[in-house]
């Protein structure tokens, strides 16, 4: 894994080349890709090719025998995707979750003190310190285009703001299907945006607890409760959870990734109380039996809570409050289309120069002065920040300010 991480890292902060173009920059980037791949040497080149195309289950079966180890490791290959561990391409998703690094440790995961909100707060402060202005509660309704150029935005209240450069951090569907008038876009581009796959597959439970739940399978005092906890013990269980999603229902035995961060960061709850964050795979955006309703949302939450309670007898009695989020809720609250956490699925057809749309993978929209900087663009989501950085480079280069 570490080798594959090292291979992919230098590619994250680069603009993907357009393989159909003869522009010097594209050729240069293609050449870079080729050379970077070549540097691996023959044996590892094949390894890399196989790794990027195989299923997570096949890969794990080459390394491990124990069902529980395979099931545990397969989790990262399905999070946020519409794939199962037996779907080819899921090994890459696993890598996508491992390629981060914290304090130089590649593949490490960490908690931000105060929760993930602390990261965005710090980013906002950094932006403001550089002279930027942030306005919250200012929903953009429309991106203005005049004469084929982006000229600014219109806010929900009708206020117009003008700028020669408009950068959308929204997903590609919300940007181009809802915020830019279609007459400003090439019809073929709009069609491709419609085809972009952004199906929601994950749910979330935020649970306030009266105390630390007890897991009989974990020895008393073990540090295991401080990290990720999963209750899935076979690959078959994970795969069957995916089969439910395909049929338009939430997994009857979901894959659950749960954390109790308050063991490490007590600032998040009142004294003695705890907070459990539960990531749930799979939960569909569209249900086969009609729209989501509050009753169905509760039933989904109960499925998850029951699954956890099977491993923790006192869990249910400690629950003070449970916030249940389906993909539909995530869409409504965060604005991510279909509640897809990566702003678009991480499949071959939506990676690198195909992300988000072939021919438009270089952060530039088909409207002059308009750019994309969200996770819909290369290299995708996961609180990485790379799309934003790459997009800024593209904009600065266009403005002639980057040498």
């Amino acid at each position, binding site marked *: 894994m570490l080798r594959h991480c090292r291979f992919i890292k230098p590619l994250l902060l680069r603009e993907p080349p357009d393989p159909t173009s003869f522009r010097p920059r594209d050729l240069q980037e293609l050449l870079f890709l080729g050379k970077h791949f070549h540097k691996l040497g*023959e044996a590892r080149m094949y390894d890399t090719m196989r*790794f990027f195309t195989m299923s997570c289950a096949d890969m794990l079966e080459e390394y491990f025998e124990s069902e529980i180890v395979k099931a545990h490791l397969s989790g990262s290959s399905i999070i946020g995707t519409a794939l199962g561990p037996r779907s*080819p391409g899921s090994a890459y998703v696993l890598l996508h979750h491992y390629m981060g690094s914290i304090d130089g440790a590649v593949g490490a995961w960490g908690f931000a003190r105060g929760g993930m909100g602390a990261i965005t707060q710090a980013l906002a402060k950094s932006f403001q310190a550089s002279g930027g202005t942030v306005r919250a509660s200012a929903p953009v309704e429309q991106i203005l285009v005049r004469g084929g150029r982006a000229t600014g935005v219109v806010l929900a209240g009708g206020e117009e703001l003008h700028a020669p450069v408009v950068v959308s951090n929204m997903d590609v569907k919300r940007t181009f299907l809802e915020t830019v008038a279609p007459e400003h876009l090439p019809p073929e581009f709009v069609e491709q945006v419609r085809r972009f796959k952004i199906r929601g597959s994950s749910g979330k439970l935020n649970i306030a607890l009266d105390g630390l739940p007890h897991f009989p399978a974990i020895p008393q005092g073990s540090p295991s409760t401080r990290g990720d906890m999963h209750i899935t013990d076979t690959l078959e269980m994970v795969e069957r959870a995916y*089969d439910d999603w395909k049929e338009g229902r939430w997994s009857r035995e979901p894959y659950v990734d749960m954390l109790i961060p308050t063991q490490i960061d007590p600032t998040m709850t009142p004294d003695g109380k705890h907070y459990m964050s539960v990531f749930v795979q799979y939960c569909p955006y569209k249900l086969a039996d009609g729209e989501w309703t509050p009753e169905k949302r509760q039933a989904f939450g109960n499925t998850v809570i029951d699954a956890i309670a099977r491993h923790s007898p006192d869990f249910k009695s400690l629950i003070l409050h449970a916030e249940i989020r389906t993909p539909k809720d995530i869409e409504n609250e965060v604005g991510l289309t279909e509640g897809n956490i990566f702003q678009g699925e991480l499949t071959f057809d939506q990676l690198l120069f195909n992300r988000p749309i072939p*021919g438009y993978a270089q952060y530039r929209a088909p409207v002059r002065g308009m750019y994309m900087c969200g996770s819909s663009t290369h290299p995708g989501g996961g609180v990485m920040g790379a799309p934003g950085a790459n997009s800024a480079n593209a904009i600065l280069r266009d403005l002639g300010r980057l040498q």
Partner: protein
Amino acid sequence: MSAAGQYDAIIVGGGHNGLVCAAFLARSGKRVLLLEAADHLGGAAVTREFAPGFRVSACAHLLHVMPPALMRELGLEAHGLKLAAASLPSVALAEDGRHLSFGPGDLAALTSAAPGDAAALADWQAFLKRVARALHPLLTETPPRLGTDAWRDRAALLGIGWRIRRLGRRDMRELLRIGGMCVHDLLEERFAHPLIKGALALDAVLGTNLGPRSPGTMVSLLYRVAASQGADVLALPQGGLGALSEALARSARAAGAELRTGAPVARILVREDRVAGVALASGEELAAPIVVSNADPKTTFLGLLGPQHLDAGFTRRVSQVRSRGFTAKLHLALERLPQFPGLAEAALRGRLLVAPSSDYIERAYNHAKYNEFSERPMLEVTIPTVSDATLAPSGKHVMSVIVQYAPYTVKQGWAAQRGPFTAQVLATLARYAPELPAAVSASELLTPEDIEREFRINGGHWHHAELTLDQFMMTRPVPGAAQYQTPVPGLYLCGAGCHPGGGVMGLAGRNAARQVIREAA
């Protein structure tokens, strides 16, 4: 060792690729001996009598991916190959009798049922044809190695890039986008009618361990169209697929190759780190400086050669090749031609598909993931006797059914499950042809386990190794043996486990022969 120096090359296995390889090696002037374990040639491309008087193509039942150029080169027509039917249409069966028939250049039925889909299909086939022309040459060449300094590898890689570029920006972008996609998503983008989606998805998953929602299924579809160069050329050889093998054998013999049947090879002999010949099960040893194995990679390396001649990493790779079959074959002897309500008798000459939607196939596939056979399987049905009366007693018929999914390993074992599975397939057929079960006088089921035993294919996979992106081109079957040569000098592979795979295509055999000739020069 007897008669040392009598042969320049020994070919282990007389499947279609072995025969093709023998013919080309013999033509190049080599003294070639081909050894086949069974008492007849053809491997899995044979016609067998499964009930008195009833004969059927044992595994593959249609000829569609062998390039016409290769067939001409081998003079198969002159060697007795006749087609009983060609350019067969496909019929997507519907339970309500509103079947959809579509054939090469014939979209009339589809146009009246779903005009939008007819236009989309024409557009899609035109695109595939353009792509197929660009990709076909990939199948006819030895896959280049990566990361070498050899001009041949570099030229081949540049050639691939150039052919894809020459498609033009639009097609190239589309190809690079869809290449790794799953067929289900692609069909959702382009088509509306569930029957047409089911029929197209079937082509993408036939012979694989994948469902329509598995990424990589576009590769198997593109592979299929690249092999036939986009032409829709389903054909039935007169006398079944065995007739093709017979023509191949005659072509090889005419070129001077010696073909021996009933001669199972027990071991590939190695002396001083290179191949020395083979030992037969009878104990007889035959010497040759070159041995070409038409057997699957696991049988070749782990069985016939033995890991003692290989390094541990290579052996591990070979043992990890995914080679378990998921496809079964059911043969039915019929007292009379079955009636499919809603289908004219003339349409029975075509390929009948039970794959009413992409979701239907995906559900059939779900079972395979958990070592169960499909409750409602996907079927590709032919009734070869409609075009070729020689296969059954007068007035009677044969039905040949490819069934998916039937995993190599099923819970409770095939001995217990073959009865229930056969019943399930018959029940599925009866949904479309209610009187069919009453017309059945005999049947034969070949599960992957049976295919493994009868045709000596480890895992019983008709491609010898799963045809997916991670076992493709320079990684097929494993790096280090992907250019037909192997870590043991003088030992080569020529079977479906090599690039470009099986399906009665014959290119692995020809590419291997070329590689042998090139290296011997």
